[in-house]
């Protein structure tokens, strides 16, 4: 019998849970989704405005307070990246390598510039610059008012890298990026020079596949420590100014970790949620009931709860203290790969088919 080869980590069926919280669907909107081109289209939230993009080339803006659409802008070319938004501008990158700066009120295009690379992660910005990182690991920084190229850091292209939503962490002075070769770099925002770099994991093994050891998640900064995950490498904490490693733990995760008040949570390759003590790296708990379910990057809803989406369109909420599953809801049967968002008492989820849902997150304990 032509057995379909079973995947490396077979998805585990969901067991009944003791729901302590619940998620009630409030609102549902629609984008054109990723159209099978493997885009995640991370959403952006600023003040009460929610922004999203899709593979059709449309950028949407909603007013969450009023619960209705503000504007839709059609760029007539597929968008591959996630969305970044703040008070001044909204940034997206198209599939053929054009960075667009849009006016947050009207969606009109301020400027656009070509960088001729595929960008999946959402652009990041600070007061002066907007920074994007391509799938191959190269980093471009542009002046956010004019769109003029400030600097370009190029990574020596490895033959086979992991397809992931590489996202830089932009601070005032430095921009932190992970590379396909397993290194964490700090780039000086003025000129793009490498202030420091630290090797988090080593490519080992014989074939190209075994040699893949990308750092593909977005580095996270919390209480003066910089955290990063690594594919077939390590989860590590380093000093943000010098790159001095504080602790590192063998792990394999290609998604960004979530850090909040002393707890770091990441999803490993097998789909287990693992919580570490942010100061020492000691393992607090491991939640493996969602193994193999293609989880999205974990997000803290509040200090007590964190949430992930899975490949069948389920939302799962876990308790931060021990990782037990406290709430669950299912949207349409389409994968949720974009990290969830929290707005006031609501949780926002986006599926790859473009269904965007707002859920009221409340406890069901009297």
């Amino acid at each position, binding site marked *: 019998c032509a057995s379909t080869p079973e*995947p*490396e980590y077979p998805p585990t069926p969901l067991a009944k849970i003791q729901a302590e919280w619940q998620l009630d669907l409030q609102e549902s909107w629609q984008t054109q989704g990723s159209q099978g081109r*493997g885009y995640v289209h991370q959403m952006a939230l600023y003040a009460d405005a929610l922004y999203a993009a899709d593979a059709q080339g449309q950028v949407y803006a909603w007013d969450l307070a009023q619960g209705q659409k503000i504007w839709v802008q059609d760029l007539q070319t597929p968008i591959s990246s996630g969305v970044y938004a703040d008070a001044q501008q909204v940034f997206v990158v198209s599939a053929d*390598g054009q960075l667009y700066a849009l006016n947050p009120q009207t969606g009109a295009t301020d400027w656009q510039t070509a960088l001729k690379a595929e960008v999946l992660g959402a652009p990041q910005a600070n007061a002066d610059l907007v920074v994007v990182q391509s799938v*191959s690991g190269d980093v471009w920084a542009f002046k956010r008012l004019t769109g003029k190229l400030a600097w370009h850091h190029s990574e020596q292209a490895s033959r086979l890298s992991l397809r*992931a939503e590489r996202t830089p962490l932009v601070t005032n002075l430095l921009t932190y990026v992970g590379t396909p070769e397993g290194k964490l770099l700090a780039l000086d925002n003025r000129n793009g020079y490498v202030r420091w770099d630290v090797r988090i994991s080593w490519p080992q093994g*014989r074939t190209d*596949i075994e040699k*893949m050891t990308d750092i593909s998640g977005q580095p996270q900064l919390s209480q003066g420590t910089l955290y990063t995950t690594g594919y077939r490498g390590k989860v590590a904490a380093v000093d943000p100014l010098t790159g001095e490693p504080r602790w590192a733990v063998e792990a394999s995760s290609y998604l960004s970790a979530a850090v909040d008040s002393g707890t770091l949570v990441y999803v490993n*390759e097998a789909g287990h949620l693992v919580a570490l003590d942010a100061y020492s790296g000691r393992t607090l708990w491991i939640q493996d009931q969602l193994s193999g379910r293609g989880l999205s990057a974990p997000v803290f809803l509040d200090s007590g709860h964190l949430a992930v989406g899975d490949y069948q369109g389920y939302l799962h909420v876990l308790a931060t203290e021990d990782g037990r599953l406290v709430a669950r809801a299912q949207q349409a049967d389409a994968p949720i790969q974009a990290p969830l968002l929290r707005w006031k008492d609501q949780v926002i989820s986006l599926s790859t088919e473009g269904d965007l849902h707002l859920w009221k997150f409340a406890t069901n304990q009297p």
Partner: protein
Amino acid sequence: QTPDRFVVEDIRVQGLQRVSAGTVFAQFPVSVQQEVDAEQLARAAKFLFKSGLFDDVRLARDGQVLVLQVRERPTIAKIELEGNDQLDSEELLAGLTRAGLQEGQVFQRATLADIQQELERLYHAQGRYSARIQAKEEALDGNRVRIEIDINEGSVARIKHINLLGNQVFDDDTLLDLFELEAGPSWHWFYTADQYSRERLKGDLETLRSYYFDRGYLQFKIESTQVALSPTKDAIYLNIAMQEGPQYQVDTIELAGDLVLTEAELRALIQLTPGQTFSRSLMTASTEALRQRLGNEGYTFANVNALPQLDEATQSVKLVFFVDPGRRNYVRRIRFSGNTGTMDEVLRRELIQMEGGWASTEQIQQSRVRLERLGFFKQVEVETLPVAGRPDQVDVHYRVEEQAAGSISASVGYSQSSGIVYGLQISQRNFLGTGNRVTIAAQRSDYRDSYTFSYYDPYYTQAGVSRGFSLFYRATDYEEGDVSNFTTDTYGASLTYGYPLSEDSRLSFSLGFDQTEVKPAVDVVQEVSYFLEQEGDSHFAYKLTGRWIQNRLNRGILATAGSYQSVSLEVATPGSDLTFYKLNYRGQKYFPLGDDWSIRVRTDLGYGDAYGSQEWMPFYEHYYSGGLGSVRGYKSNSIGPRTTPSLVGGDTDPFGGNFLVEASLELIYPLPFVQDQRSLQTSAFIDAGGVYNSACYPVSDACESGFHTQGLRYSAGVGLTWLTGIGPLTFSIAKALNAEADDDTEVFQFSLGQTF
């Protein structure tokens, strides 16, 4: 303690289980009575260890006796594979054997890792990047091990999306069409175009570069190609970033170096002209044409290279062709191989390139074509090899593959036109490899009994004067052949001489006689009885035939290029009972369309008439049309005017006519799964043909004289010819397009043993 220096009285080996002492001594370079020191012994031990038979080799000394303590490595008794579905076990075991790992082999610790790596490599080659292999060993008695390999094949990494960046001039779709790799729906397991492989990507990038170079974008550059694999390892995404650059026009073209020929002559071969958009393929074609031309002048190893100099300001190219003829070459020896049946002289006499003369590439190639035109060989290849120590001399080697035509063959053929054909054919075109055509053939069928003896020597003299003679006896029952109800007995003989007029055309004359008896059946058709009344039923004729043949086909059988024409005039000379002539033209031309596709146009024309006191041309010499080799889809000989039934009754039969018009248009295409195109040719065709009488017999009522279009018959269909061991097999399925009531059509026709 290792002995410092001593004479070895004897050598004893301890720890042998399955390895024989003889093998150990053969690998241990120390012999009895030899004086050795510690260093020599260490080297000897290392040499024995390198044999790979033992896990450990230790030396000890017992008095004057050297003791070898060895621990044998186990050998692999069995390798078992589990979980492999896409790649079957033989394939995997063959891969392991190639890596030197097979049953009976010595087992080393490293073997396990080697097995794992080798199998992973095999799966990665199939694009199954997520395959995982565990190998473990289990000890058996007799120092042997069994190796168990558990395979999880994982899924094939399919290309989800190819992303082109930086292309403004040509859009994504036009460029992606050039690619072999495509992002395709993974619903079909055998759909392999979307299976990523590095070689295919390299090939596609090369196609992309030449696409741009061929359109003048000389500064086109592929900046980066980036391959990303999804974390679940089953989807691959390609990013190709390019820099198109400006389009360049040709500014000037120069020729430099030792041109050997006049500049004008060489310049005519260059396919680029100033002002035209530059194209790399035209530049390469021009270089090849120049090199070929110099080869024809004896400079077989000439080389020509073209250097485009870019002027970025004006976006124009200055093109310089550097010509270096090298030295004129001479052919030292010409050698044949593969002609185990055909005599060397039969091949050598066809060559245009002379041994001992200056070498011309064109003549060497033309000689290859002439060998193929003999029709004795399935394949003829030629290579020119430089002679060591003689920079200006070459040897030419023709490698032939003989056609599997038995020299003695009894053939039982079947063709619808004449039923079962028993035939004993003593030989055909290459009698015992002498190149002479000797045919002693006896054929019996309901339609015709014929006995022929013919002998034809194409090289009666060296210059190519050919000579042949033939004797034949034929009894034909036209009734069986659906013509009309009479039989003819003919016998005769002829002597033929021919000689070449040029490299590919010949003229031949033949003188002969034949005697024909016509025996009408009782209800013979009126036309026959009318003719017999006029001319009697037994005719003797002297036959003089002149024939001009021009054969430029690229192969003797199943040609795919070139042309063939023959004009012949057959005259029954004065002094024969019936004086008539028949003028025939037969021509075919191929238009190759590239890699085994070509169009073939064929035409047959014939006109015969009586002359002198004679009024009618003998009806048994009439032309007929229809059937295989003529207008397919119609019964053979069935097209054309029909006879008038006898007064007694009986049906009308085809009567043929004194002039024939036939033509066919064929598209020859290769069958996809057939590699050996040389012995199988398939085609789709349209045939047309008609037979007419310039004047009608007074007795025939339904007869229209002269050419008229309703007389033409059309058909269309598909055909196949296959060269089997016992002779060519021809099939055709054709639909008659404008058959009328009394035409007898035949959709399926086949025959074995004749080539058409």
